[in-house]
């Protein structure tokens, strides 16, 4: 089951989330102990950043659109779909074990991202390596 939520962001929040998205997200994707985690993906200059993230079932993935044109985050098989994420707006979903890994922007099909689902056993195995 997926839970969706769309938000409108003020400038201060946008600035804070930009820093989070650009500097912290890649490092906390699978290593932090807190559960569930929120993973922020910035949409800027028609790119999903980071382009690929690792998540666990139950985590929250949040897309924040910093472009002045609208975008979508849509599973390649259309199992989940944000619909339009307007400028300075965000959308989030809770990761289900069945959530499809590849996604794209319906309006700009060249924009593509990947959400890799890491199960508990796989995450522990990676931490032991």
């Amino acid at each position, binding site marked *: 089951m997926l839970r969706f939520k769309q938000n409108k962001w003020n400038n201060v929040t946008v600035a804070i989330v930009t820093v989070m998205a650009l500097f912290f997200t890649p490092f906390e994707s699978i290593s932090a102990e807190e559960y569930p985690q929120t993973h922020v993906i910035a949409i800027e*200059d*028609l790119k999903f950043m980071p382009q690929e993230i690792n998540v666990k079932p139950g985590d929250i993935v949040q897309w924040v659109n910093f*472009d*002045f*044109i*609208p975008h979508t985050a849509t599973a390649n098989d259309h199992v989940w779909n944000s619909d339009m994420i307007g*400028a300075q707006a965000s959308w989030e979903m809770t990761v289900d074990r069945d959530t499809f890994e590849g996604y794209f922007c*319906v*309006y*700009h*099909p*060249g*924009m593509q991202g990947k959400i890799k689902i890491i199960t508990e056993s796989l995450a522990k195995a990676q931490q032991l390596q």
Partner: protein
Amino acid sequence: MNYHLTLIAILAATLTVGCATAATKTPAELNDLEIAHVAYIANNIDVRYAHLALAISDNPKIHEFANAMIRDHKAVNVQALALLEKLNATPQDNFLSKQLTGQSNELVNEMRQLSGAAFDARYADNELGYHKAVNDIVENSFIPNIENSEVKALFKKALAIYKAHEQHAEKMVASLK
């Protein structure tokens, strides 16, 4: 007639012989306000093509692309107008804006005579060629010569959008073959 090739040919001819005519400029010689005018016109032209496509075509891929063009090109113009207002500046009409407008009028008259697959192919082909031609001018003639840093930054943002459109148009053209 292939209009995007015509556009390139006219621009090339202008570059070649423009220096001989004092009143004629090349795209690279336009000032910031003239460049802003060209961009505003070019955005509106593609919005016009998109509305024509929505009216004539029944193809969902064409509709999807056309709706994206309307959303994005209008958004770029909203940003451009806001910046010009902030700078207390007024765009200046020029030879290139006039050429683009004249060509678009001819193309709209041509395309409105078409229907079905013939229209879809013509629209898709023109969108690919139009974005290629405009992207080349924006990247190689406009951006290097824009003096105002805020205007230059907006054009760089817009170019990223237009390049995504070009990629999208390539896929649209391929899907129709």
